[in-house]
């Protein structure tokens, strides 16, 4: 089907198909095990006691009542904990932002509400939970500052930039002057709420103490290498003393990029008691660490009467903790997405007395594109130009920020195919002009953009004498379909049936690979697996050619194919050898190769790599009740080659659902006096449910990209970017109300 995957070996038989997930049977039978489900002999259970204040210090802890409960093994606090690493640096994980990471049970200081202040360890879960309720603490409380609006005046440009996050580019042209002189101006303030990831599986770690004194750690993490690094640094262990596994993960979305405090506490207790320990957080405690920081943004767009942009200004401020400078790319997108001669983008942080925010699905882009793409819709109305035409009028084939062409950018196809599927041409642009019975109907659209990333990764491939192939590395399948796509790539590379290929992931004993995040896993691990398989194929070929009377005696590698479990001369399938016979003749029980893959430096020098989308939304609104239903979404995505049309479609659909949540439902509300999130449960923090989700139509447009040999760009994030803006724009079209403050709840519709 494509030349890109062709390794000079296999055919594209499975890559690009709609294969069902290879881990499907394990997941529908309950056999897939998650971090908090691994057992061990003599397993003890830990339950976390959380602080009830946001800022101050602990003045007293009374653990006597808890310790008196039969079955309680230990109550760990900062007062009696074993010695741990003192330097904050030792707690810096692979993706920690600049700053001084939180150290659980380190001392009496409280820096956010819900901070772990004790761990009760007991023979069973119920006893630990009960005893935890008996731990009593006294505090000296200080006034917390958690209101971003109030902290705006104290906002700052982070002095140390976070690795991998580009700071805003230097301004070009004269955005202020051009805006002032523009014929048509839009300048508005936009807000999004704090959001919590809320994966269905709460954070969990099981630390198993092995007979030889080493540890086997099952952790909810998007990359076990990070768990291992964290534990070895914080506890002074060597890598070979800590094997970390995460074979399945019950949802990540960024929430499990960094090791969380339950891991630290489980290891602390396991060492202290010399017993295996499991710690699982409650749903309530899922509000006590990372979140998508709410932001206050201003977008100013100046244009001429034809809609040509003359000035773009995008300023954003979002919160971070008092101890780390979490950073994401909120404003740079405006400079990359549109051609404009006068651009100024600024980005600042405000310190809040909360846990450190973190990456949540398309971090920064969700925030920034909501503001930018709503502003573009406002500009469309101000100029009287159709929203798609306005975007086409400002289309760019090069990235103005880097002054380099895009490796590929099929956004125009997204507009065309998305509009066609949605029926955009039938839209009457006048607000309140479309109805369905008593409901107002609104149609809106927006663009999405995300970086197409690749990280250095390695992978191992092992072909056994029985003709079975095992591939894998330490990255995680967080529900994205990594097991499946790697199986497809490997099966094609060596021409094997799918049931002869096994993919193993999420184990530090496997080849090293990066954390699963940023939509880079398919490109990174996919390329590494492909290269490892190619290496095995070359070895097989060499052995086959050397066999007595080999039918491939004079062939070269570029002229053979791997198919049907054989290596054959291209076009002459009869001239070939079965892989099992090759290994048998060579007297080998296996052929193994470990290969690394890195981003193509030449490509990066010449091109910029992004995925793009055009999102179309239909809403129906009962005006009397103010209830919004998102009845239709069409998401047209340009993301390079699609390895598996079934799982990739699911990625986009799922991201669209999270975008619906962002637009209409999700808001972690702070009680600013207490500095505490109030709605810490799934009843009061509404994530989209079945009844909130109607038709979602996903289109993958053709796009050929050469950033990596597979031609993939990644699909984990792009589906959410722009979705909230498309919905907000549809709500404006339906009601005539421009709501610039997410989530768009009933009260805002009725106001």
């Amino acid at each position, binding site marked *: 089907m494509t030349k890109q995957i062709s390794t000079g070996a296999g055919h594209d038989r499975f890559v690009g198909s709609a294969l*069902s*997930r290879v*881990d*499907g*049977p394990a*997941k*529908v*039978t*309950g*056999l897939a*095990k*998650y971090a*908090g*489900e691994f057992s061990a*002999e*003599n*397993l003890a259970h830990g339950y976390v006691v959380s602080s009830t204040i946001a800022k101050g210090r602990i003045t007293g802890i009374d653990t006597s009542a808890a310790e008196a*409960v*039969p*079955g309680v093994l230990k109550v760990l606090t900062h007062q009696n904990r074993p010695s741990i690493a003192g330097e904050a640096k030792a707690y810096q994980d692979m993706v920690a932002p600049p700053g001084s990471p939180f150290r659980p049970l380190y001392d009496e200081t409280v820096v956010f509400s819900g901070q772990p202040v004790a761990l009760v360890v*007991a*023979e*069973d*879960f*119920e*006893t630990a939970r009960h*005893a935890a309720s008996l731990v009593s603490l006294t505090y000296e409380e200080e006034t917390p500052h958690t209101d971003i609006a109030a902290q705006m005046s104290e906002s700052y440009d982070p002095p140390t930039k976070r690795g991998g996050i580009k700071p805003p580019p230097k301004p070009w042209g004269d955005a202020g002057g051009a805006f002032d002189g523009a014929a048509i101006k839009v300048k508005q303030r936009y807000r999004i709420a704090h959001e919590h*990831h809320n*994966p*269905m*599986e*709460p954070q969990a770690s099981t630390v198993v103490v092995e007979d030889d004194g080493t540890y086997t750690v099952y952790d909810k993490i998007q990359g076990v290498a990070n768990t291992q690094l964290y534990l070895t640094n914080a506890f002074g262990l060597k890598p070979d003393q800590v094997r970390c596994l995460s074979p*399945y*993960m*019950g*949802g*990540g979305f960024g929430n499990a990029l960094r090791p969380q405090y339950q891991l630290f506490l489980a290891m602390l207790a396991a060492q202290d008691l010399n017993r295996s320990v499991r710690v*699982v957080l*409650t*749903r309530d405690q899922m509000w006590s660490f990372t979140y998508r920081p709410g932001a206050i943004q201003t977008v100013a767009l100046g244009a001429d009467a034809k809609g040509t942009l003359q000035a773009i200004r995008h300023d954003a401020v979002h919160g971070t903790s008092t101890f780390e400078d979490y950073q994401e790319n909120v404003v740079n997108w405006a400079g990359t997405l549109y051609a404009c001669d006068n651009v100024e983008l600024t980005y600042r942080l405000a310190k809040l007395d909360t846990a450190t925010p973190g990456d949540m699905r398309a971090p920064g882009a969700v925030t920034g594109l909501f503001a930018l793409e709503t502003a573009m819709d406002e500009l469309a109305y101000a100029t009287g130009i159709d929203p798609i035409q306005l975007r086409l009028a400002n289309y760019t084939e090069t990235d103005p920020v880097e002054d380099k062409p895009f490796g590929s950018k099929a956004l125009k196809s997204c507009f065309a195919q998305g509009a066609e599927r949605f029926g955009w041409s039938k839209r009457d642009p006048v607000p309140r002009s479309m109805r369905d019975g008593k409901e107002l109907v609104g149609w809106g659209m927006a663009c999405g953009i995300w970086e197409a990333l690749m990280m250095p990764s390695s992978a191992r491939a092992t072909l056994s004498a029985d003709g079975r192939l095992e591939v894998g590395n330490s990255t995680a399948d967080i*529900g994205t*379909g990594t097991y499946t796509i790697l199986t497809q790539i490997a099966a094609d590379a060596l021409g094997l049936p799918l049931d002869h290929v096994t993919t193993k992931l999420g184990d530090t004993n496997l080849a090293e690979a990066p954390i699963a995040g940023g939509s880079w896993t398919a490109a990174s691990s996919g390329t590494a697996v492909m290269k490892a398989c190619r290496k095995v194929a070359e070895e097989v070929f060499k052995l086959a050619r050397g066999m007595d009377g080999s039918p491939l005696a004079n062939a070269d590698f570029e002229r053979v194919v791997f198919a049907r479990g054989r290596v054959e001369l291209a076009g002459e399938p009869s001239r070939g050898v079965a892989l099992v016979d090759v290994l048998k003749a060579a007297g080998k029980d296996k052929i193994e190769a470990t290969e690394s893959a890195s981003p193509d430096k030449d490509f990066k020098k010449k091109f910029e790599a992004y995925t793009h989308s055009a999102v179309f939304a239909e809403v129906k609104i009962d005006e009397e009740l103010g209830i919004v239903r998102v009845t239709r979404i069409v998401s047209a995505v340009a993301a390079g080659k699609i390895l598996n049309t*079934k*799982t990739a479609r*699911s*990625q986009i*659909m*799922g991201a*669209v*659902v*999270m975008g619906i949540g962002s637009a209409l439902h999700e808001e972690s509300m702070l009680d600013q006096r207490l500095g505490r999130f109030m709605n810490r449960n*799934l*009843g009061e923090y509404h*994530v*989209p*449910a*079945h*009844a909130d*989700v*109607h038709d979602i139509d996903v289109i993958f447009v053709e796009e050929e990209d050469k950033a990596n040999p597979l031609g993939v760009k990644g699909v984990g994030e792009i589906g959410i970017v722009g979705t909230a803006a498309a919905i907000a724009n549809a709500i404006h079209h339906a009601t005539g109300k421009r709501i610039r403050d997410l989530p768009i709840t009933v009260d805002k519709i009725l106001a």
Partner: protein
Amino acid sequence: MLSESGSAGADARIGITLTINSERRELQVAPWTTLLDLLRERLDLTGTKKGCDHGQCGACTVLVDGTRINSCLALAVMKDGAEITTVEGLAGLAQKHGTNTLHPIQEAFVEHDAFQCGYCTPGQLCSSVGLMNEGHAKTRDEIREAMSGNLCRCGAYTNIVDAIEEVMHQGAAR
């Protein structure tokens, strides 16, 4: 090793009999043990998931005498004598009706890619079977309404409804 009898901290143990996935079990359980924790912590039936422990997410949905319930909201002692089916027993449920290795709803979930991370999946599956047993939901909107107690953060809803609709129209086994 902790015995099946449950908490070391609770004095009282109550003897109950449950039939779990067609297997009759006599158990001594502490009164504060939920059906969910009994399944996961004592019986190693970890297919049933804990997502919120508050009856708000549906990940713990099991079938009790054919009716779907949130097992986190039921104390195990309340279900004395009941017949319980968890995700591990769904295939067996179908086999009784003469089908193959998986329950049709399990097969449909795989075919329609009705899950991603898989953590809500056991609850969605048991809830789907419960919904079909109830027989009220007929249309896609009714399925959506009646499945709204089962959250899926990966957002596989459209595919879940496709899977349920297909099995429902086949009039598949319960």
